[in-house]
């Protein structure tokens, strides 16, 4: 998406005075017209407190607020729960809210800030990461930046990719993952990187993208962007997540597998993660209010699972995962797929074994890394004043 188009998709830009001199603020004011910029001393829409209405949530995607973040930037993926087979994924959040509009987005279950917040103090995030270096520098830490904000959809404006790619050059054992549904990669393709940057796309059949992933790049553009990244030596990955049931789902996902495998080989990416539609029960209210019941997501047949989330029936999930795994393996047994946020039972019934026993995935699921991080976190906390 061209920068002008991106800028025009927002109603307003609010910048905290304290962030005035930040590189982020300075970049943004170059692109936004004056009449769309307001300098503030407190968060805008302050009368809007607590749980948001659907209208307030919609509005929050259209108004950017630049401010420093005072909390902890870096933590374990919050999807990890007891009873699930989880990989060692950590997240670094440099913003909150997304400018795109997927009907199933989990941000609907917890965001209660009335703006799309971008943190102006990325340097503090990098210092936080640095503090783990003494104990974790040689460990295969995987750090993603797409948990509470799309990693790249706003990157043409923020250029945070440059700072992050540069930082990670000094930590060759760590990997940085950009997770996105955009095709915005041109702004960092020329950056020198340490070979440890993974650019990944959440993907779905085009039919699902059109119906449920509003404002995102179409499938072809995402795959094109992946090819560009691959050509520049960036590692790439895909997340077929969430798989969404629809009447012709088998053909749709088969076509997706075909599109992917025609362009890429298993050696191009260490793994593909797969997940089925799931969400916290309270999320259904906001989704229903914002998208009605014509959405495949809101009208989905979902049931409470052991971890509290609403999910498709276990047997349907097993069928969908098995289908997808087989579709890939039929093309090449070298394809490595792993299930995101699933129980050991679903792993075994869909793939035949647990991830810890699956070649190519053992590192991802090595629980020793989590314990090392926990130990490093408490040491780091003692060191800080």
């Amino acid at each position: 998406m061209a920068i002008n188009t991106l800028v025009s998709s927002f109603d307003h830009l609010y910048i905290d005075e304290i962030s005035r001199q930040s590189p982020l603020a300075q970049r943004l004011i170059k692109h936004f017209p004056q009449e769309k910029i307001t300098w503030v001393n407190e968060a805008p829409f302050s009368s809007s407190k607590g749980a948001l209405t659907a209208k307030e949530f919609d509005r929050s995607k259209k108004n950017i607020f630049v401010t420093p973040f005072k909390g902890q930037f870096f933590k374990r993926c919050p999807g990890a729960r007891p009873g699930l087979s989880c990989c060692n994924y950590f997240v670094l959040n440099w913003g909150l809210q997304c400018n795109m509009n997927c009907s199933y987005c989990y941000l609907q279950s917890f965001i209660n800030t009335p703006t799309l917040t971008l943190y102006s103090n990325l340097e503090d995030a990098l210092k936080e990461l640095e503090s783990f270096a003494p104990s974790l520098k040689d460990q295969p830490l995987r750090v993603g930046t797409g948990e509470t904000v799309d990693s790249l959809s706003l990157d043409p404006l923020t250029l945070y990719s440059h700072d992050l790619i540069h930082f990670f050059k000094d930590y060759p054992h760590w990997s940085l993952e950009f997770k996105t549904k955009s095709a915005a990669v041109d702004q960092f393709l020329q950056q020198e990187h340490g070979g440890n940057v993974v650019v990944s796309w959440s993907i779905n059949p085009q039919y699902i993208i059109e119906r449920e992933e509003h404002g995102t790049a179409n499938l072809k553009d995402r795959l094109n962007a992946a090819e560009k990244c691959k050509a520049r030596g960036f590692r790439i990955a895909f997340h077929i997540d969430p798989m969404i049931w629809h009447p012709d789902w088998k053909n749709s996902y088969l076509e997706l597998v075909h599109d992917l495998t025609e362009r890429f080989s298993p050696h191009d990416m260490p793994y593909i993660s797969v997940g089925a539609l799931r969400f916290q029960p309270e999320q259904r209210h906001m989704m229903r209010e914002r998208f009605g019941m014509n959405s495949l997501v809101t009208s989905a047949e979902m049931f409470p699972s052991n971890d509290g989330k609403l999910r498709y029936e276990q047997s349907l999930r097993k069928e969908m995962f098995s289908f997808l795994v087989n579709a890939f393996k039929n093309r090449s047994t070298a394809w490595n797929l792993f299930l995101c946020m699933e129980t050991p039972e679903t792993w075994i019934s869909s793939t035949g074994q647990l991830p810890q026993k699956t070649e190519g995935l053992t590192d991802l699921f090595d629980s020793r890394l989590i314990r090392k991080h926990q130990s490093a976190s408490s040491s780091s906390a003692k060191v800080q004043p």
Partner: protein
Amino acid sequence: MEFVPLSSLKKDFYFEPEKPWPKSLPAYGWQNQLLAGFDRKEGSALILNGDLIPLFHQLYPTLSLIELSQTFAIFSKHPETRSHLQEWLEPYGLKFSQRLIQFFEKLQLVSPKILQWCNEKKLRARDLEILNAFSSLNDFNFLIEKLLPYGISKSRGVQLFEVIGELLLMNKKDEVLQIFTINSLDAIEVELKRIRFPLSSEKLTFQKKELANFSWPSHVKPQWIRKGDSTKLKLEMELSSFDDFEKKLKLLSQVNLNMQKEELWP
């Protein structure tokens, strides 16, 4: 503290409490406002000292959904209270937000019969989130009022309100209306869920039907049930002796194999 004539007090905070103010207590006021004893026509009120909101909480430690809706409409506008809504809401287990305002506005559109039921069952705001999905509640009121005479429990009611609400949003009003020709609440619930969850209902129905094709030992009652995101086979058995148990286990083992052959296990 002093007593003043009721007639001298304003009624800015007037609402309709569900129960009359206890006769053993005086009416109470604060500054020049009546706070309790709104149902009294004459007499006097004891003026209380202190801050309005804590006094209100002491007079009304709990409020029903209808009472909350009425008082919220007053407190959110009155100059004495509109800036202190969070303080006023907290003891009632609520947090101020635009979403809450929106909810109370929706509550005004719910029919009195349904509101009465919600009050009796002590429903909370979060039990009625489905209301927020509607701009008009006419059809919702119409259908839910048909449900109430079946004597539903709170948890079942909350669930069915949501299912019916969703079916309305899916433009299935006529299908839902048809269901209310059935006499049994259990059957109504099954039918509502069949329309809302057609694929999984069909699968469960098939599984249940197929059970009859197997040779179950005597005094063994099999049932397919849904538990969360999976369906499970539930067995009720009556066993009279060690041998009886052994015999039934052997027969069940054979049934298990047959079920597997027929791919009945999920």
